[in-house]
């Protein structure tokens, strides 16, 4: 096959998959009210995908915060503007790094385990068995996991931001000697509610994306060991690409 043909084929394949994913999302949304009526199932999923991602999110956030603190201090001190370090760090985290890095980490930590869990349930006929027991797997298995992700990602993003600021504060104020009062007051001065909303909107969109990709890949995984493995890999790759695309789109739209 020639290259243009292959590209065309790839494009068609992606479009078909996108369509299937959107139909799947509609299917899930239809079952969401029923799933929300069972908060215990959802809190269990928030625990599975959210709480268990906390450690990796917090560790990463602290280091990301420290490195922005360091880089920010380095750049700002050339302009003799170290005092606005707090504002710069907070804006970077709230608007960009918090939602994006959290979503990427979530895809790697929780998305993969969701996809392989669901894929394995399909491969071992557990989903078929539920169907036959008149239990809708979308309602009982898929929707709670999807909602769990949609709840977890924004919460994890908030944690990421908080810890990230702490990391930057530690480097900037404690190590580099930026004035503590200036660090916090400049943050209050320059960070406006719309900046926060932008981050919240992004983290919500990324939560939907990460959750949908994971359950979609798992649900449609070929019922083989290789199929489940590939679905897991695709979950990370697809989520990462989509998150970066959506990040740009939302930023461009809001600016």
């Amino acid at each position, binding site marked *: 096959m020639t290259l243009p043909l292959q590209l065309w084929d790839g494009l068609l394949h992606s479009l078909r998959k996108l369509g299937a994913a959107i139909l799947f999302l509609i299917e899930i949304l239809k079952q969401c009210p029923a799933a929300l009526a069972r908060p215990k199932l959802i809190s269990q999923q928030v625990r599975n995908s959210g709480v268990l991602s906390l450690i990796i999110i917090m560790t990463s956030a602290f280091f990301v915060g420290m490195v922005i603190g360091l880089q920010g201090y380095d750049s700002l001190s050339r302009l003799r503007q170290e005092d606005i370090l707090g504002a710069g760090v907070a804006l970077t985290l709230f608007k960009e790094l918090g939602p994006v890095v959290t979503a990427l980490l979530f895809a790697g930590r929780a998305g993969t385990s969701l996809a392989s869990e669901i894929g394995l*349930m399909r491969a*071992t006929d557990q989903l078929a*068995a*539920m*169907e*036959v*027991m008149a*239990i809708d797997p979308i309602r009982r298995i898929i929707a709670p996991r999807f909602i769990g992700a949609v709840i977890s990602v924004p919460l994890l993003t908030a944690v990421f931001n908080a810890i990230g600021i702490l990391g930057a504060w530690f480097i900037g104020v404690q190590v580099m000697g930026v004035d503590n009062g200036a660090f916090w007051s400049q943050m209050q001065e320059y960070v406006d509610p719309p900046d926060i909303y932008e981050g919240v909107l992004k983290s919500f969109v990324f939560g939907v994306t990460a959750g949908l990709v994971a359950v979609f890949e798992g649900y449609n995984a070929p019922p083989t060991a290789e199929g489940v493995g590939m679905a897991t890999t695709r979950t990370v790759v697809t989520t990462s690409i989509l998150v970066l695309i959506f990040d740009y789109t939302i930023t461009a739209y809001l600016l």
Partner: protein
Amino acid sequence: MGWPTPASTGVRWKPPESVTADNLVEVSGLRFGRSGRPIFSGLDLGVRRGSITAIMGPSGTGKTTLLRMITGQLRPEAGTVKVGGLDVASLARNELFDLRRRMGMLFQNSALLTDFNVFENVAFPVRENTRLPEALIRQLVLTKLNSVGLRGAAGLMPAELSGGMGRRVAMARAMVLDPELLLYDEPFSGLDPISLGVVLRLIRLNNDALGLTSIVVSHDVAEISHIADHCFVISEGRVIASGAPRELAESPSELVRQFMTGAADGPVPFHYPAPDYAEQLLGKPQ
């Protein structure tokens, strides 16, 4: 709950022997293929209400596929599968789920939920489909587990069970809600002689005591002959013989005798369709 019957007029209506209205499951003209290979080419069979019907046939003839069509997991390409007078393939999703609440199915590979222990696996359909109080659920589940001899295993996880134990748990789960139609896919494989006897009696007992209709897919001609009221032998997409087990054993047909005696050579092919053996081994292009 009850299957719609023509007798709802109140007048006592006795169907003639061969009339199909008395069939709970009715398959007619079924056609289905997979990866371009036909599996069913005009299959007809009927399962009488209240009977135990055995479906036999060589491996790969589509017995599991047939059960999947009866439960509405697969749709026929042509022909119909009717359960209780309803065409399964034409039902809307919620109607299909209503129908499935009256069915229980034992999967060939047990299909237990690996995240739940044995007790919760059996309790799962009860919890999801009813609002019974916990005490009643406990009683129900333990009774069913006891009947398959696994009450003591209630706390084990599926990964801790042997294949035969898993099968018995799946059986308890399939019948926990006392469905009207029970489908068993290979209930005897992997069972030791004692559990096999228990399971055989259980299928018969369930069927008679609760007035169920049972469809049992099995290769074990000898075992199934003990309990089945009626047998169908399927091969190459059609029913090649049907009748009471005794009739089949004495059948003059070579096809049926081959199946009943288990000879590899005969009218029923043992091999999946394949190119010529010698040619393939010698590496000739196909």
